């Protein structure tokens, strides 16, 4: 399978402080790539360069290229709004909008004018909720506030919201770190399920999680990509001593 995302020689700066050093890696189509590493290693920053979410930080600066489907997303003529529609994102803390469950999922469909009519909108909302394995739990309370459901359900709602705009890629920034083990398990099952249709990049602090859900794993430290290999290899016989030390819990 081809590569969905290709990053080459990416450097990233917050003002004068460099946060990422010369990163190159490729995310294959319809696979799950996990980013692991100690706090502050740059994995979240790197994730956010993939949908240009760092643009919102005034002092942020990027050099190098990130291509998605062969196009450099940092080219001057890139339409960031449509880029972000194609690269969905799920955040560490669930962040539903102060709207009903239905309207949360409908939001992205509405603003991007994906639907043809009301019935189509309802259908798309249902499909997104089903794909996020949430439909059965919320189908009778679609018009209630999104804050009335549990934390784990809210996070799956946020995934449904991201799926509803039909992205090709989903970026997940520690999506289960605020959830209990059962809710976490549901999210993990969902990630594996979603792999059939999407390319997924997931940042996680939980190494077992990375081992369970991902096909490839990248290990970051101090803004550098230390090792990038198949998950199997990373967790059994990594090439780098640092990776082994981190995975076996010798530091971090």
């Amino acid at each position, binding site marked *: 399978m081809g590569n969905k995302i290709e990053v080459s020689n990416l450097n990233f700066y917050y003002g004068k402080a460099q946060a990422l050093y010369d990163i190159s890696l490729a995310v294959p189509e319809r696979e799950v790539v996990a980013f692991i590493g100690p706090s502050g290693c740059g994995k979240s920053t790197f994730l956010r360069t993939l949908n240009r979410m760092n643009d919102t930080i005034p002092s942020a600066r990027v050099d190098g290229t990130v291509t998605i489907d062969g196009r450099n997303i940092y080219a001057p003529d890139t339409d960031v*709004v449509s880029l972000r529609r194609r690269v969905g*994102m799920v955040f560490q*803390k669930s962040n*539903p909008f102060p*709207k009903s469950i239905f309207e949360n999922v409908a939001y992205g469909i509405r*603003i991007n004018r994906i639907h043809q009519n009301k019935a189509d909108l309802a259908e798309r909302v249902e499909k997104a909720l089903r794909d996020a394995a949430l439909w059965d739990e919320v189908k009778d309370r679609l018009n209630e506030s999104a804050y009335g459901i549990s934390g784990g359900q809210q996070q799956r709602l946020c995934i449904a919201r*991201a799926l509803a705009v039909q992205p090709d890629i989903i970026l997940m920034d520690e999506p289960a770190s605020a959830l209990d083990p059962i809710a976490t398990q549901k999210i993990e099952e969902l990630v594996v399920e979603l792999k059939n249709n999407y390319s997924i990049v997931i940042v996680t602090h939980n190494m077992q999680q990375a081992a369970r859900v991902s096909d490839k794993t990248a290990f970051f430290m101090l803004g550098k990509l230390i090792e990038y290999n198949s998950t199997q290899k990373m967790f059994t016989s990594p090439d780098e001593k640092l990776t082994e030390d981190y995975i076996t819990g010798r530091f971090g």
Partner: protein
Amino acid sequence: MLYICAGSVLAITLTMVVAMTQSSWLSIKEFGLGFLVGQVWDPVKGEFGALPFIWGTIASSVLALIIAVPLSVAVAIFLVEQAPRSLARPLGFLVELLAAIPSVVYGLWAIFVLAPLLRIYVQPFLQSLFGWLPLFQGTATGIGLLTGGVVLAIMITPIITAVTRDVLEAVPVTQREASLALGATRWETTKIVLSNASSGIAGAVILGLGRAIGETMAVTMVIGNRPQISASLFDPAYSIASVIANEFTEATGDLYISALTEMGLILFIVTFVVTGLAKLLIMSVANRNLPQN
């Protein structure tokens, strides 16, 4: 200890109500509920009615809100969502500074700058466009309800802006990012921020309304101080706070003083009722989907 502090608020309120009721008892006994609907204010004949003042107070405050709320919210959105930091800081400071200017200064400025401006440019313009509406008929003198409302609007804009700005800034960045990540434009994202901030903005508006109702000096200087109820915004009017400020020192006779005190009591009640109604209105249209803390 904290109970005592909290209780003191209640005690002060009660003491005020009791004291004011007591000293206005003469007038309450004399006019009864008729005081509220009486339209004549004639100290010489000893005839007192509060309706024109109640009208002037509410009309000028509502007018002020109609002008100030959209302006304030727009300025706050600009400061938080659009302006570069180098501009937002000094501009935000300026807004806070405006909120601290004494009202008598606003009043003077209104007499010498705002009133002529309205008389020469704004009122003829409004009349030429909407002259068929009773609201904009009459002589454009520059002194009257419209000028009172506009100066109030200018006075409450800084407060509403400052509070709204703080409320918008308090909206979690994750809400903005969630919207942007779905391919929303800046304006679409701003709407999400506003829906998060709706109850806080409502609070800002009530704060502004409270100040508008009780404002005395600036209004007194430009509203025209004539107790009448007119459909035209150009005609002079009178507010409760203004009549108390203007006439209390010169009031002769117990009934006159008592009637003025009753005006104070009414201002108290009007403030109470209007802010209460505003809160009810806001609760009925409030965003029921906000997280409940």
